[in-house]
């Protein structure tokens, strides 16, 4: 039976809505990338704005503010990637040792919660919760003689807060894949180890951790694609002029440059730089994940 158009036309038809959406909202905007090479002025449009070659990219690597922004992005995202891999991994291993089903489920439900709340909600909460002016955390710290700590008012503390609060929001959700991988470990391995007199620590070291390694490699490599994504929603809803120097990232910089300052050309160039670097990393990461863990998306 050879597939012919007569038999497969419904399949093409089914793909039409999604494909139309992709073309309009994903492929057509790619044409707008030419703005990165133009001194784009909205009132001149694409036809009459002057071409300026690579000037925007030269500026990107010469302007002090854009270099600082790239550096901020890298620092914040690298810490996020490392801790968002390690914390869920360790948490899943520890949770696996809790034998009371009801307790395990309750803990899981509670740690998944922050993932589902938006950074608008969490930003609104954290700005008060972490404030130096009677915020809940500083009151608790004050009671044991620490602080007040300017979590959101001082550059270095701001980076710390951004990283910790992101791990706080996402680690529970990150454990899901590891808990699933643990459920797939063959119980016979543990039974055999038990017979051989291995302690629980030895079992963890030689059975549990090796069984989680493929999943950890997949999660780790795939998150490399996010190295220039330090989290727009989070930073935008937490930052202020006091921490701009150490807290501003590529995405917030692009937003302000384009929408607030109207410098569309430069903002497009910065965005394009981010897209290209991310694409290289994503493609590389997927190849690695495929080679080492046989992971495929499509």
């Amino acid at each position, binding site marked *: 039976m050879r597939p012919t158009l007569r038999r*497969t036309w*419904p*399949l093409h038809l*089914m*793909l039409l*809505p*999604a*494909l139309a*959406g992709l073309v309009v909202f994903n*492929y057509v*905007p*790619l044409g*707008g*990338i030419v*703005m990165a090479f133009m001194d784009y002025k909205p009132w001149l449009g694409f036809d009459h704005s002057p071409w300026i070659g690579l000037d925007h990219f030269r500026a990107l690597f010469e302007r002090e503010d854009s270099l600082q922004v790239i550096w901020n992005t890298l620092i914040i995202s690298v810490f996020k990637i490392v801790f968002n891999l390690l914390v869920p991994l360790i*948490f899943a291993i*520890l949770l696996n*040792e*809790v034998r*009371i089903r009801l*307790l395990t489920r*309750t*803990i899981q439900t*509670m*740690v998944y*919660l922050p993932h*589902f*709340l938006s950074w*608008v*909600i*969490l930003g*609104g*909460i954290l700005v008060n*919760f972490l404030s130096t002016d*009677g915020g*809940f955390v500083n*009151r608790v710290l004050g009671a044991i003689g620490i602080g007040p700590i300017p979590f959101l008012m001082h550059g270095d503390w701001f980076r710390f807060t951004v990283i910790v609060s992101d791990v*706080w929001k996402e680690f*529970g959700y990150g454990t*899901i*894949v590891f808990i*699933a*991988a643990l459920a*797939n470990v063959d119980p016979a391995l543990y039974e055999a180890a*038990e017979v051989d007199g291995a302690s*629980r620590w030895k079992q963890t070291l030689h059975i549990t951790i090796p069984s989680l390694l493929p*999943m950890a490699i997949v999660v780790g490599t795939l998150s490399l694609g996010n190295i220039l994504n330090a989290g727009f929603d989070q930073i935008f809803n937490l930052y202020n002029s006091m921490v701009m120097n150490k807290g501003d990232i590529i*995405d917030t910089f*692009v*937003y302000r440059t*384009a929408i607030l300052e109207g410098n*569309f050309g430069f*903002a*497009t160039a910065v*965005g*394009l730089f981010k*897209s290209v670097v*991310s*694409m290289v990393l994503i493609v590389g990461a997927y190849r690695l994940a495929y080679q080492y863990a046989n992971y495929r998306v*499509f």
Partner: protein
Amino acid sequence: MYHKTLPYRIFSVFNTAFLSALAVICVIPLLHVLAVSLSSKAAADGNLVGLWPVDFSFEAYKATVSNPYFLGSVWISVMRTVLGTALILLVTVLAAYPLSKETREFRGRPVYAWAFVFTMIFNGGLVPFYILILKLGLMNKFAVLIIPAMVNVWLIVLMMNFFRGVPRALEEAAFIDGASHFGVLFRIYLPLSLPALATLGLFAGVWHWNSWFDGLLYLSRKEDYPLATYLQTVIVSRDMSSMNFTIEEMELLSQKTINAAQIFIGALPVLLVYPFLQRYFIKGLVLGSVKE
């Protein structure tokens, strides 16, 4: 048996306590907000509220639900979540079915698959998209909140993987009985995919309810804002013009308690929905990542 040894028992006690503490830390900020929203102005402004309301008061909620801007934005959020999720599910199911076929059954598949994958790895960035919305005339229209979001490649991949788990014998039998592809999709695949639909519906619904940036970027009138955008402008950016209070009211009410009440109402739908769907989204997520 390691369970019975003393060191393991000591570890077990500490481990359980540690994990429980972490779990509590995950919900503490929300408990604090709830407590503040139910406290009196004096207690909230004096920073006296911890995890339990002080001078219990419903005033902040009364003020919040009598604010027309707030109510209007809730309505817009409900509309966008319901319509937007329905649209995403429709587009996703329709696209996932052909993509779940093997290349020998559907020769166009690799080309389509690449068209989808490419959008996951490369995009034009914020500015070209903004100009596109401008040129399409979608600025300040409700449709800007749902149309551009209708194709979500991740959800299509999740659904495609689920469809691949449907036994082939079922559809082969249906084809022999003369069923069409549409018939197979809607009569066989969909009824078998309700858990997956619930998962994707949850993801899409939460995404729509939480989305705020599109509203901020593409809508300029405050009365058009969805709740998330309204909360962003009022609470995070502290724009008071849409709070709609007289000076006398401002004296009676604390900004802190009202903000807390608005935040809590904004989080409430998500809090109510996700525990019930927990079983499903775990399945859905695992489906997308653990493969043999």
